[in-house]
């Protein structure tokens, strides 16, 4: 049998079979995940100081969950993310359909302007938002959740372009004849939109929503510039706690958020892969 065994040549980027590549991949994975693993591991460490392993405990999770200001911040973050997601999906989908479907003057300029929040450095966005809201001088002492309006608006501005990008790429695989077939069978414009275009867009809408949600949930820079003393979000709160010391409590809280984002992101990826399979199906 050995006579017939040939050595299969190495492909240029075959990570698993080339030693140098294996080392490279190992290093990348190490620097990427070691900090995260350490953070999660030490959230279970039975010690005030994050240096040596003293034993397993979940008490810091209890402590974090009982920390009222931390929980308020988490509540704020989730509320903002939820509202920003809904608004971003609607706005983003509308923008995507408009850009895909119609031809109008200065279309290229519109497209560029839409991508701006994605490419402009966050710090600049943050400063711009700060100046903008200072000029606007909105009332600051509104009841919850209206007091989150400022941050929510800021989040929508940088979330919805991502939704537009995802939905737009989904739309480009749409066969216009499907819509025409629906109309040919008697459907009005709106019925065709509801029965044919929306179902086609759905995976894009869900993926866009998850993207917007996670982006909003963990945003620090822009939020930092637009939040007031009573509207702390989770990332901002964690930052302020870390300024005193990195306690296992912070680790525990961060681990919870990591879990949340990992779950949501994997959901988004799964949907996107299904989207790809669907697009290839016809």
């Amino acid at each position, binding site marked *: 049998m050995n006579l017939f065994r040939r050595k299969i040549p190495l492909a240029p980027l075959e990570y698993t079979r080339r030693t140098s590549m294996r080392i490279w991949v190992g290093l990348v994975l190490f620097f990427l995940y070691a900090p995260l693993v350490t953070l999660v591991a030490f959230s279970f460490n039975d010690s005030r100081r994050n240096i040596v392993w003293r034993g397993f405990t979940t008490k810091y999770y209890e402590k974090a969950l009982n920390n009222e200001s931390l929980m308020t911040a988490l509540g704020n973050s989730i509320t903002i993310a939820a509202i920003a997601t809904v608004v971003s999906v609607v706005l983003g989908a509308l923008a995507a359909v408009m850009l895909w479907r119609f031809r109008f003057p200065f279309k290229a300029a519109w497209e560029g302007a839409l991508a701006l929040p994605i490419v402009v450095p966050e710090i600049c966005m943050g400063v711009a938002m700060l100046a903008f809201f200072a000029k606007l001088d909105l009332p600051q002492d509104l009841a919850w959740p209206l007091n989150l309006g400022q941050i929510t608006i800021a989040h929508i501005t940088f979330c919805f372009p991502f939704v537009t990008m995802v939905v737009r790429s989904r739309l480009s695989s749409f066969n216009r*004849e499907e819509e025409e*077939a629906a109309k*040919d*069978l008697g459907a009005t414009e709106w019925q065709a939109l509801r029965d044919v275009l929306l179902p086609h867009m759905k995976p894009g809408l869900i993926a866009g929503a998850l993207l917007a949600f996670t982006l909003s949930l963990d945003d620090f820079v822009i939020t930092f510039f637009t939040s007031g003393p009573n509207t702390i979000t989770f990332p901002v709160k964690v930052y302020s706690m870390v300024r005193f010391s990195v306690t296992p409590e912070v680790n525990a809280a961060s681990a919870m958020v990591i879990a949340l984002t990992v779950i949501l992101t994997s959901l988004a990826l799964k949907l996107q892969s299904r989207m790809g399979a669907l697009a290839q*199906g*016809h």
Partner: protein
Amino acid sequence: MSDASPIISIRNVTKRFKGAPSPAVDDVSLDIMPGEFFVLLGPSGCGKTTLLRMIAGFEIPTEGQILIDGQDMALVPPNKRPVNMVFQSYAVFPHMTVAQNVGYGLKIARMPSDEIDTRVREALELVKLDGLAGRRPDQLSGGQRQRVALARSLIMRPKVLLLDEPLSALDAKLRAQMQFELADLQDEVGITFITVTHDQDEALSMAGRIAVMNKGDIAQLATPSDLYEFPANRFVADFVGSVNIFEGTLTLDEPDRAAVDCPGLGKVYLNHGVTGAHGSQVWIALRPEKLYLHVPGEGKAVREAARDAPEGHNFARGTIKGMSYLGDITLYEIRLESGAMIRVSRPNLSRRDQEDFTWDDRVSMHWRADSPVVLLS
């Protein structure tokens, strides 16, 4: 038929796409009668789909008028037109099951759901898809998807069914079967069919009338046999079937006889006059099956056989340069004495007929005086 009014009337319709150098459909006028099986035939890009889409309402004519059942369609949107279309890409709805696809139009029309179920079952039976009602389109083959699209339109019982290459994805056997089904169906429900195809065999076998299109124009509108036997110009002669075309000069043109001098083929004698000839430059179209092959020794017999023209004998000599055995016929490529090539087909009437001739054999051929078609353009 003569007193019936056309179900579809296309009057001087032109469609110019923005930025396109020439119109996709150029001043086309057509009348299609109720119950007719009408076929649009032409090479890729000649404007067949565009014409069909204008009838369905998806493209607006740049100029001209389209009437369906006597009504001007200019302001009628696609969903209000009494026609249905089967798209070239099938356009089945990927997120709906086969049954939902087929029942969609009736659902939009708010038909009660039990009635929809019955009609869907009937329609699926008609296209031989019963049993696949619960499948999704991505679990179907191309031909099955095409039949879903067909059923989805048929179920609407339109006055006119527009079919854009409806059978292109089917295998030969199923295609023949569907051709019969379509013809039967048409007898049964009396729908008018307008079918687009670039498959001439399909067109010839199915159509009542065929419009051959070329670059947005109608090159000829005729029944299948007229199209084949009396092509109006070189384009049609060449596009429909296989043909030998020789350029020549009309040297004689009387009511009962004519002669054409072709440098490639020699003198061609006809037993009828040429109508409408105004120049002397003409083309002779001679189909491969209308030529008879002989071995050289039979020279006299050839002359005898070719004596049906008043003015002379229709024959030529050459050498066999190519041969392809196709089972029912054998096709020969022959180099004439002038150097021009001619194609001759010969039926294999007995089982060893293909052995009569071989490469580099010198042969004679003759044809009847009414076989060549004189083309003026």
